[in-house]
């Protein structure tokens, strides 16, 4: 299940006085099982691009092939594509509408015309995956949920459709650190255990540093960087020029280097940073107190 985009351009309100081009000549391929992070300053076109992945937008200029099917082709079943490519929006309030959590999560599979028992099984599985206890939350009123719980319920609602690709659009924004941890853990589990291709759109470099293997950086409607995470994060100056803050660990490594410590700069996460710092401290003999 793969996505291949060639020569994609997109304009909003084309033909009106408000016309604005937001995507310029996008070329990109995402393969099965990848974990791709898409990052960029706001208004870079990340969400617009992502909405081509599940055929919410169909190309007017350019070509989008999902799983070998051309989304612009009139014979392509777009609804099937939307079941196979799940999309979780940032604001769960735009999605949750049924009276109870269980009913809302069941909405997706019911649209897929699943038999009753399978719907039940999928709802249970989805709730378990996102960490919402079945017995506590199944009959809960959606208005009684906290922000983080709503977000998890929304993700569960999309997971219940059993997608092969999952697009997460800025789902950690506005969450407290614990909420963030919970969501990231869920996403990691989905990628590792269920082998779902994850496309993670975020403005937080730290989130991406933890999970993404490949990073695509967008700015002003174009893809400006596309490569392995380590490589992209190392380009601190370029990222800063685009208005993006590099992951905190990398920032720390750079500052240590500036102060004269010979630490490597291509660090991805806290563990690697600790290892690197320990190694340097060992060399300078301060090992005992810090190990």
């Amino acid at each position, binding site marked *: 299940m793969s996505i291949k985009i060639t020569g994609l351009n997109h304009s*909003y*309100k084309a*033909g*009106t*006085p408000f016309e604005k081009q937001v995507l310029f000549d996008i070329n990109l391929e995402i393969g099965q099982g990848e974990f791709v992070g898409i990052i960029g300053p706001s208004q870079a076109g990340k969400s617009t691009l992502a*909405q081509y992945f*599940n055929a*919410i*937008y169909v190309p007017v200029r350019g070509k989008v092939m999902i799983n070998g099917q051309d989304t612009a082709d009139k014979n392509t079943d*777009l*609804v099937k594509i*939307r*079941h196979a490519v*799940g*999309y*979780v*929006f940032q*604001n769960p*309030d*735009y*999605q*949750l*509408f049924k009276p109870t959590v269980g009913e809302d999560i069941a*909405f*997706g599979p019911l*649209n*897929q015309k699943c038999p009753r028992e399978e719907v039940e099984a999928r709802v249970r599985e989805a709730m378990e995956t996102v960490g919402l206890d079945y017995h506590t939350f199944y009959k809960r009123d959606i208005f009684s949920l906290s922000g983080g719980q709503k977000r998890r319920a929304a993700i569960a*609602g*999309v997971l219940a*459709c059993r997608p092969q690709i999952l697009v997460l659009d800025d789902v950690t924004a506005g969450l407290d650190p614990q909420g963030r941890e919970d969501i990231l853990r869920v996403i990691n589990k989905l990628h590792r255990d269920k082998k779902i291709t994850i496309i993670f759109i975020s403005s937080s470099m730290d989130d991406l540093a933890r999970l993404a293997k490949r990073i695509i950086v967008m700015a002003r409607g174009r893809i400006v960087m596309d490569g392995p995470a380590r490589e992209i994060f190392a380009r601190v100056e370029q990222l800063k020029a685009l208005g993006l803050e590099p992951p905190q660990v990398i920032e720390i490594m750079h500052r240590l280097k500036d102060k004269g410590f010979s630490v490597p700069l291509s660090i991805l996460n806290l563990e690697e940073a600790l290892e690197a710092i320990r190694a340097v401290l060992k060399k300078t003999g301060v090992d005992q107190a810090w190990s």
Partner: protein
Amino acid sequence: MELTRNITLGVYLPGDTTIHRLDPRTKISAAMVLLALLFFIKTYTAFVFFAAFMAALVLLTRIPVKYVLSGLKPMLPVLLIMWLCQLFLQKPPGSEIIFSLWIFKASDAGLRLGTLMSIRVILLYLVVTVLTMTTSLVELADGAEALLKPFRKIGVPSQELAMTGIIALRFVPTLAEELEKIVKAQMARGVAFDRGNFIQRTAKIFPVLLPLFINAFKRGEELITAMEARNYTGGSGRTKMKVLKMCRCDAGAFIVLFIFAAGMVALIVMVGPPY
């Protein structure tokens, strides 16, 4: 996909044309006069003059005509249904049947009334659109409030009414945007809005209408809190940063309006249709 494409109601396009520079009180009163006239004219001739007047106004605003007319698109199905109803159901005494389709008989009165009604709706839309496209929300609020001020003495809450109306207008594009996001979120879960028979499609409005309403209420509450936090306690005693002032172009506009209205009234009174 964009639902906000054809929402032209409430959308303000800034400009520096004569119409843009008119005092909002002038524009609002003119709009009311024109709307009142619209309800009384009944002949093709009168409508032709009215349409010509509106065409002149639209051109004066220098807003692309295509854009102004694009707001009519959502209305077309309803207009068509209304026209067909008038065509086949109007049978006032003295009318003749001009043709029949299956069991439906179309009368010439029906054709005339249906067409006139449709034209009336289109012209109504044009009057309101010219007003909202050339007058910013703040201007509209000030203008409406000023016009209603004399009625405060008899207990009409002029400022509050103006505020309510303007907030409602101001949120039309915002709600349309939110509607689009909700539609996308439900589309992403497999709701096919373009499939199914009429009943099925109507049922699909719930996954969209509910979040929209809930969010609208939440927004309303937040707005009230924000306004109260900035000390809004209603209209009495409220002062203004920019005070409205009429100028020479307003006098000119009123003269043009008066001449046009007089002409229309003459047409209404002198030339009446048989029915």
